């Protein structure tokens, strides 16, 4: 293992960026605790950690999008307090954020120079053709040929939009570029452009902070890797001969490794089929999907992000209607065609995009938990507030949700607690079949562990779970069977066994 405690520093050298004792709290969650962090010139620094470990918060603070509660930052030894992203750009620090950062309705060029329009001011007006030309130049410099600068950006694909953002970040000629989990959205071509530019920056003695979940990629391209966990920096290591697994152990924390996933190594479920899916096809997304879900089974579905599995999840819940094929709840002999029926027949769904799809952020925890179960607790259309409260309280107790009261708005909960609320609404409804789309996305390790053990508990109780996940380890660790999708088709179905490895599965995914 190639861990050294901190990078060797030459004391007299002033580092490019120095972050000192930064703290940040979001209403109730402490996102960063006393973070100390340094980046040297000409260095590519990897930043890894579980979801919710504070990487993006740190990146946002460095690039001026949010402000720290306290602590200070120094750039080249001088105090650096960016008030906005534009300030950061002026100090030669730029970022490509994880979310979409281009605006519909503006042209590519306008997006590229958003906030910097005055560069093209001529007698008070914008020289749009000049702007288009410059953007053409900028795009071409980074080898992006197929994007027209005067096109409305809403017509571009997600990847192209990300490339535009990337060009925007590079255009300011940054001393420090932060790339926050962008590669997942890029194709091979896009990645090539990205890494070529990163290498080019390095060759000019500039630095990059590279945030990614793809540890292989991080190890391949970075000089040093900083590992974060629960808002704190765990360690900084030089890559050298570092192995992915070692890195992962650092990220997760070894003591958790044993009890993290379920302990049995054999698939175990009843023979009763609860959900039969046959020949399900959604044009342009997935084709001829057939499988059976059994009582007490955890069925994993894995694949690349765009392999169709997320849409498949929505279809199983009746939110999308498939072009052909059927979904049948076997016990009730009921074919699912819409989400109201799905819920009525005991199916629950945990969406991937929790804040938009899973929760009503501006509603109370109670309202969120009770919403799917209203028809269960109503008596002749009457819903007693007492019953509602009891239901919500039983849900929050079961999952140990940290909150001030059940009337608290979900907006102010931490990611893990939000996820618990989303899960809890299906648990209190006593759903037989749970479809979980990326259930551990963006939540910390402790909650993750509790969700895994909860799944185990449910399995023992005879509930069936379909878990859609992009994390292979999770799939291997929890599922009884794993369906691997590629380009919308079932490539292989693995049964749980002791020696199942990620490599084996990846082989069928790509």
């Amino acid at each position, binding site marked *: 293992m190639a861990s050294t405690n901190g990078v060797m520093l030459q004391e007299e050298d002033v580092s490019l960026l120095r972050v000192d004792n930064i703290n940040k709290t979001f209403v109730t969650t402490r996102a960063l605790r006393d973070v100390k962090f340094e980046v040297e010139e000409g260095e590519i620094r990897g930043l890894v950690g579980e979801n919710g470990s504070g990487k993006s918060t740190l990146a946002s603070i460095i690039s001026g999008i949010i402000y720290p509660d306290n602590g200070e930052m120094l750039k080249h030894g001088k105090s650096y307090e960016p008030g906005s992203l534009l300030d950061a750009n002026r100090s030669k620090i730029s970022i490509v954020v994880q979310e979409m950062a281009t605006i519909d309705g503006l042209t590519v060029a306008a997006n590229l120079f958003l906030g910097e329009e005055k560069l093209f001011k001529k007698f008070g007006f914008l020289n749009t053709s000049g702007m288009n030309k410059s953007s053409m130049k900028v795009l071409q410099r980074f080898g992006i040929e197929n994007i027209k600068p005067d096109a409305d950006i809403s017509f571009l694909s997600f990847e192209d939009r990300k490339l535009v953002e990337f060009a925007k970040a590079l255009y300011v000629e940054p001393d420090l570029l932060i790339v926050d989990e962008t590669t997942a959205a890029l194709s091979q071509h896009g990645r090539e452009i990205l890494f070529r530019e990163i290498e080019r920056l390095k060759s000019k003695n500039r630095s990059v902070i590279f945030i990614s979940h793809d540890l292989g990629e991080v190890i391949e391209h970075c000089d040093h890797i900083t590992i974060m966990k629960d808002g704190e920096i765990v360690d900084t290591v030089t890559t050298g001969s570092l192995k992915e697994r070692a890195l992962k152990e650092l990220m997760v924390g070894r003591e958790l490794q044993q009890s993290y996933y379920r302990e049995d190594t054999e698939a175990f479920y009843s023979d009763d089929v609860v959900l039969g899916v046959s020949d399900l096809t959604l044009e342009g997304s997935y084709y001829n999907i057939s499988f059976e879900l059994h009582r007490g089974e955890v069925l994993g579905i894995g694949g690349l992000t765009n392999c169709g599995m997320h849409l498949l999840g929505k279809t199983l819940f009746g939110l999308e209607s498939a072009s052909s094929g059927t979904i049948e709840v076997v016990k009730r002999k009921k074919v699912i065609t819409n989400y109201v029926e799905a819920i009525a027949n005991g199916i629950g769904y945990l969406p991937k995009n929790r804040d938009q799809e899973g929760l*009503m952020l501006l509603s109370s925890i109670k309202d969120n938990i009770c919403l799917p179960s209203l028809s269960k607790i109503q008596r002749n259309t009457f819903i007693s507030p007492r019953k509602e409260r009891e239901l919500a309280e039983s849900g929050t107790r079961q999952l140990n949700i940290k909150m001030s009261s059940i009337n608290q708005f979900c907006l102010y909960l931490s990611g893990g607690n939000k996820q618990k609320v989303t899960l809890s609404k299906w648990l209190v409804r006593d759903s037989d079949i749970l479809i979980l789309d990326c259930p551990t996305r963006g939540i910390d390790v402790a909650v993750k562990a509790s969700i895994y053990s909860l799944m185990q508990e449910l399995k023992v109780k005879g509930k069936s779970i379909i878990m859609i996940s992009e994390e292979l380890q999770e799939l291997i660790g929890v599922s009884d069977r794993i369906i691997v999708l590629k380009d919308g088709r079932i490539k292989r179905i693995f049964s749980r066994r002791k020696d199942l490895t990620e490599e084996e599965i990846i082989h069928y995914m790509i």
Partner: protein
Amino acid sequence: MRKMRGIKKIIPYLGLIMIIILFSALTQGSLITFRNLKLIFNQAVVLIIACIGVTFVMSQGSLDLSQGSLLGISGAMAATFAALNTTLSLPMALLTGIAVGLINGSLLAFFKIPSFIITLCVLFILRGLTVIATHSGSIPIPFEMLELDSYQIKVPLLVTIIVIACYFFNYTKIGKSMRAIGSGEVSARYSGVPVERMKILAYLVSGVLCGLCGWLNVVRTGAADSKTGLLFELDILTALVLGGMPLTGGSSAKFHSAIIGGLMLAILSNGMVLVGIKAELQQAVKGVIFLLAVYLSFERESVVLIK
């Protein structure tokens, strides 16, 4: 911050009481004589019922601007059929309301045109229909129908509507689902709320109640006129906002907004005449009170972006 929210919730009540005290003092108590209170009730009843209907729509974060013209056309239908047979008038008014509600709701739910545009267009269309239905003038109702404008009918009617609507809004799946749509339509859908059905239902309720208002209004004034209900939709909007209803709907939508807002507007109109404030100034007083009330009661923390 939590304390502030608690206080903000009662500001509409406070405002109502303040206004009552203020005008009682200014009119030396004649505002709160039994006779005048009856009057205020009589004037507020149509507004309150219409507001109750719109509460359901606004709790989903949508708007209903078609109410003014709907009041006109349902009144015209009521008056037209009253000439044939007085018992027909109420059902016809309600049917008109149902039809318009269905149209509004379906356009929103299935064609996904923003409700602001739909209801504005429907406002124009219905105004035109009203003018045609009233033969560009007015239709009188049989004199004996004027007797229906009595407290013996109105008080039980209003109480029944308030109780039923309040029950549905606060204690049933329907009300909770509608507010869930306002809080987050996608999340509500993913939790099993039949969004389309609820949208149509909300407009249906709003339409039926407005149809009822059209009938009440005709009975009260004795005529359906081509101008009946002109700009009534703004009165409703003002009253609801005055009562603390957020434009975004959602969990902070409160049922009492309709009643408090309607009463406040009626008391303001009545009180200012009683005090003898110059007609030219009355509107300005209303405007200032409106802005002040909303400024104090607006729950900023329950809205991400103020638009």
